[in-house]
């Protein structure tokens, strides 16, 4: 194994390449073009992206993936933060989370090899149906499981070839990959506040699915998937709020009123100090949660929910306060702020709101103390 410095040099090079690519091939100007053309995902572009390694970090080496430092989730955190900072579109978060589930030791053997290389190479796209918005039953069919029901608000649902869902047979919970091209699956795209991050509702009528896990193996895999997904979401969000704050801070030095820069007014300086404090705090808890999931710490669930609820709220506060400090410009389509704001709004509202995650925090605290 390479030395720690060599490994971190490799990571730094990987991040540099990512940044250069994103600046050239995924600028906010291009993002706007996609928007106008109503394109949630440009497949050729996505295949190009996967060559950079954005989809292989969480997959073990024997399946063609591999992390750069031995701490795959932390590598992916660093990558995702940059994607958030540059508002890069694409299903990286949800796809990497599904990959984490498919390579979970409790996943059915054989499932992984079938799909992994195609997913990593961008030939297929997979997504995840958040259980609270999913209601699916499963019965054994002739070749595989037959599924019936609905999965609502599925991220990239209209673009995905495969949707991982939690369903239930008469006896037990199952984790199933649904093939959206097979008969029985109807996809209805919905109107996402961020057109580059589209959602869709799925109606499944005797749809075909491949079993990924069943019975007691389901919950550990789902927990891992959701932790990874939440960690990536907060990483992306703090990348975005950091960028917005940088834009607003730069503005404070360049914009003058009454013959002096905005940055010279104490009332505004103090607000910038608060914003910078909250941005550091948001990044710190996001990173702390990533570390906890990486190391499978006992407190991982607690820290992930803390991160998700804190970042969900404070990122929007930071962005709206920056909008105020940027003045009228911030209220235009032309300014980039709304690109970040839209994505942060999606992040806040999906996979558990701040309130819902606080309920998780409280029950972990009260249950833990009750058990002690």
């Amino acid at each position, binding site marked *: 194994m390479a030395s720690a410095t060599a490994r971190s040099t490799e990571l730094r090079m990987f991040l540099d390449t990512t940044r250069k690519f994103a600046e050239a091939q995924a600028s906010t100007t291009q993002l706007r073009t996609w928007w106008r053309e109503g394109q949630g995902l440009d497949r050729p572009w996505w295949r190009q992206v996967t060559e950079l390694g954005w989809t292989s970090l969480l997959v073990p080496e024997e399946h063609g993936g591999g992390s750069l430092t031995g701490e795959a989730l932390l590598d992916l955190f660093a990558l995702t933060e940059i994607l958030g900072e540059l508002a890069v579109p694409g299903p990286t978060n949800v796809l990497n989370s599904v990959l984490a589930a498919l390579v979970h030791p409790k996943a059915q053997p054989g499932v992984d090899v079938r799909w992994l290389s195609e997913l990593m190479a961008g030939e297929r796209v997979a997504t995840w149906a958040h259980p609270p918005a999913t209601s699916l039953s499963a019965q054994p069919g002739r070749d595989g499981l037959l599924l019936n029901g609905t999965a609502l608000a599925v991220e990239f649902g209209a673009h995905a070839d495969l949707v991982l869902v939690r369903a239930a047979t008469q006896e037990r919970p199952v984790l199933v990959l649904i093939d959206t091209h097979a008969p029985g699956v109807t996809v209805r795209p919905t109107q996402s506040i961020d057109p580059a991050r589209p959602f869709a509702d799925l109606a499944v009528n005797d749809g075909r699915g491949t079993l990924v896990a069943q019975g007691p193996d389901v919950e550990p895999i789902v927990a891992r998937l959701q932790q990874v997904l939440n960690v990536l979401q907060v990483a992306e969000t703090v990348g975005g709020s950091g960028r917005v704050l940088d834009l607003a*801070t730069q503005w*404070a*030095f360049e914009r003058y009123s009454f013959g*002096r*820069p905005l*940055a*010279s007014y*104490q009332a505004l*300086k*103090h607000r*910038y*100090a*608060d914003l*910078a*404090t909250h941005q*550091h*705090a*948001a*990044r*710190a*808890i996001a*990173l*702390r949660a990533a570390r906890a999931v990486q190391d499978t710490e006992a407190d991982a669930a*607690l*820290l992930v929910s*803390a991160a998700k*609820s*804190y970042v969900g709220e404070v990122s929007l506060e930071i962005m709206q306060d920056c909008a105020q400090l940027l003045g009228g410009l911030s209220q235009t389509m032309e300014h980039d702020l709304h690109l970040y704001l839209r994505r942060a709004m999606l992040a806040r509202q999906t996979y558990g709101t701040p*309130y819902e995650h*606080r*309920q998780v*925090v*409280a*029950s972990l*605290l*009260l249950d833990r*103390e009750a058990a002690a």
Partner: protein
Amino acid sequence: MSENLEQFRLRAREWLAANLPKASTEGEFDWDRGRQLQRQLYEGGFAGLCYPREYGGQGLTPQHQRVFNEEALDYEMPVRLNFPTLTICGPTLLDTGSEEQKKEFLPAAIAGELLFCQFLSEPSGGSDLAGVLTRAERTADGWLLNGAKTWSSSADTADWAMVLARTDWDVPKHQGLTMFLMRIRQPGVQVNPIQMLNGSHEFCEEFFDDVRLPSSAVLGEVNGGWAVATRLLYHERAAVGGASPFVSGVRQGQMTRDGTLTDLVRESGQADSERARDLLARSEVLHLVHSALAEDLTQRLVDGELPDAAMSYIRLFHAEAQQAEIDCGLELAGPAGVTDSGSWALRYLGRQGLSLGGGSTEMARNVIAERVLGMPREASADKGVPFRQVRQGPTS
């Protein structure tokens, strides 16, 4: 043979179980008892973990201190000795003291024999620390101190003080200051306890009337007091923000061991209320964020990614998190919280102390904006002006 962290943990666990009584929350703090406990820790090799061995410490890492703190949570601990002796004055001495001063004061402080307090703020103001009016004049064999200080935490129970005084009035304010080490109980020093708004006695006021100090009392350079004060303020921000590596015997990120919101939710029978759970979690999330921020900032300061001034982030966030906890506590305590002598109501009375003591949060915001973000400094009327000519308010 060097001991690893886990071995250290086990050794600490065994020692604590064999030597100290269990006690999870803090009652009224007894200073004599505190000194005695500190002495025991010192003799057991568990005091001053992050101080160098040659000055009475253990020469261990912040990780050792964290491990020890985790193990010590359920035991009676001399928590009040942290502030300011072990987390602020000790580290400042370590940074700026002469070899003799370090040898004289640090082992005694770590052993609980010598407690410090800080004589910085004055009746004329605390934010503008470099504007102190207390004066020290040279004599044949030392210095003569005159003036007044105020809001000095635990001055009535401490032995020595760090005093910031003006030693040259003909230069701009930062250039004419000297820091002194002063024995508190001596002729000419009068200490009056001040009653706090919640009835407790946290700080005092002092009057100095021709107090004699030897030449050896100078900490750092004569007229170089601002450099010492800068180190002191750095350690104070870390300590007040819950990010000091020297803090012993309290939960990571905390300064005290007050009862928790979780206790309140349970004891008031609200464990099943969704609303109570939300309030509890709001505060707990901020504590988790605070700990994460403290760790992250400490690491990034060590790595040189951020300037020292960035310690103000943690000072600011700490006040926010603590005040949110108190607000949630008052809300959860309901009417009984104020009609039946609730501890949360008393904490609420002193709520703003959290954003004043250790330098106000407004000053922290100035520091962040100006010295971290690089925004223009506030206009000041005393810049470059000999201090003698600087205008003072009518209350000074």
